[in-house]
């Protein structure tokens, strides 16, 4: 639950970013992110809120864990489940209709 999940910003509208999580686009709130974000930026997200803009040059290292979890883990795996819950949390963010 404290893990968070990284994704790439597609567009920003009225304080809500559409973020791509491994091909799934979800709205994420930008109320508490540390720096301004725009299309192409990577953000770390937790319970539907972006909490950190991740420097582009370091995103590879950040993504590695999630890719392992999402590609190898079974549906029951707790850690993978928490990551999927974080992606679902973004979808729950009252949106602008851009969930997909």
């Amino acid at each position, binding site marked *: *639950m*404290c893990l968070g999940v990284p994704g790439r910003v597609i567009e920003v509208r009225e304080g809500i970013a559409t973020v791509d999580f491994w091909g799934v686009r979800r709205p994420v709130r930008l*109320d*508490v*992110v540390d720096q301004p974000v725009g299309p192409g930026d990577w953000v770390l997200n*937790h319970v539907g809120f972006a909490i*950190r803009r*991740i420097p582009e040059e370091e995103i590879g*290292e950040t993504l590695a864990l999630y890719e392992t979890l999402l590609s190898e883990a079974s549906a029951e795996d*707790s850690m993978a489940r928490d990551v999927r819950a974080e992606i679902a949390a973004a979808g729950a963010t009252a949106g602008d209709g851009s969930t997909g």
Partner: protein
Amino acid sequence: MNSLDQKELSRPLQFRDPVRAKGLLGRLHRLASPDAGPRVSVMHVCGSHEQAIARFGLRSVLPEGLDVIMGPGCPVCVTDMPEVDEAVVLARQGFRIATYGDMLRVPGTAISLADAQAEGAKVDVVYSVSQAVELARSSTDEVVFFASGFETTAVATAAVLLAGPPANFSVLSAHKYIPPVMEIVAEMPSTRVQGFLAAGHAATITGFGIFEPFVERHGLPVVVAGFEPLDILAGLAKLVELVRAGRATVANMYPRCVTREGNRPAQERLWRVFRPVGGRWRGIAHVPNGNLRLRDEFAHVDARRRFEIDLASLWDEVPSPLAEACVCGNIMAGLSRPTDCRLFGSECVPERPVGACMVSTEGSCRIWHEYGGHPDLGGAP
């Protein structure tokens, strides 16, 4: 190095960068070897760290002379029974409770929210506090968001309250604040902890500077680490190095997500909405400044002040006899291991949890049960 190589061959874990992993493990083994000094015990305070350590089998490659103990890093697990009782009573009083999934089955004194739901109470599981706000918007029910989680999660609750939720929405805060509980663990007379591995994403919010006064007061090093197997190895190697050198300092081994000052806009919102107050954590007893409660300006959205919560209505309920034997509290304090509990894996399993540590996906018992039951803990007593 020979036995290390064999262990590496037999384990399922493939490090992203095997050369670097081998280098870090070699360093860790040298630092924690008996030649280098007595056993080293360090504590992490994050369920996600425990998940990664157990899931990727890291303990099987750690040196014999190093104990990595999980401390009170599971927010659901440290939620105290009276806090669950408040949610249960509100649910029985007819309020619609929205909460994160793991809170559903956490036992209160007598029953859990799941039990209340089975009795007919309205309880909704949400992934985000925003979803709880949507529930309130789309219904006429009084929706109470039973809020759990550390500072990382509390920031989202704060943002929602600052954005102006609908009038039928309120918050029952069980949010906890990690830095003060590290002080309590460090001061326990029975503690063996010589250093802390701090959780990367909580520190994303607070910044690593928050640990500097702690380090000064207690003379124990703190290393901020990420969650990838290599991040954890790097964090442990740095921490053991600092312990061995007797250097009490803060080291940031997760610079891609953590800075010294942290996320200022998030901190500003967090502290505008919440204030830290003392309170009980399950198993840890009283933690000064460990609970996050709503400030007076937010009394109108504070379920504790907005509604009468008739806790006396639970006085006649009989606690489960098994709960008496649960050692969740000692596990959270780092004094016992899941396998020390006679209920572990027999009477207490994820499908029928007795204690909170078996409920939450971040609870030590649940993690150990899922990833093999009895992971090698080196020389823990």
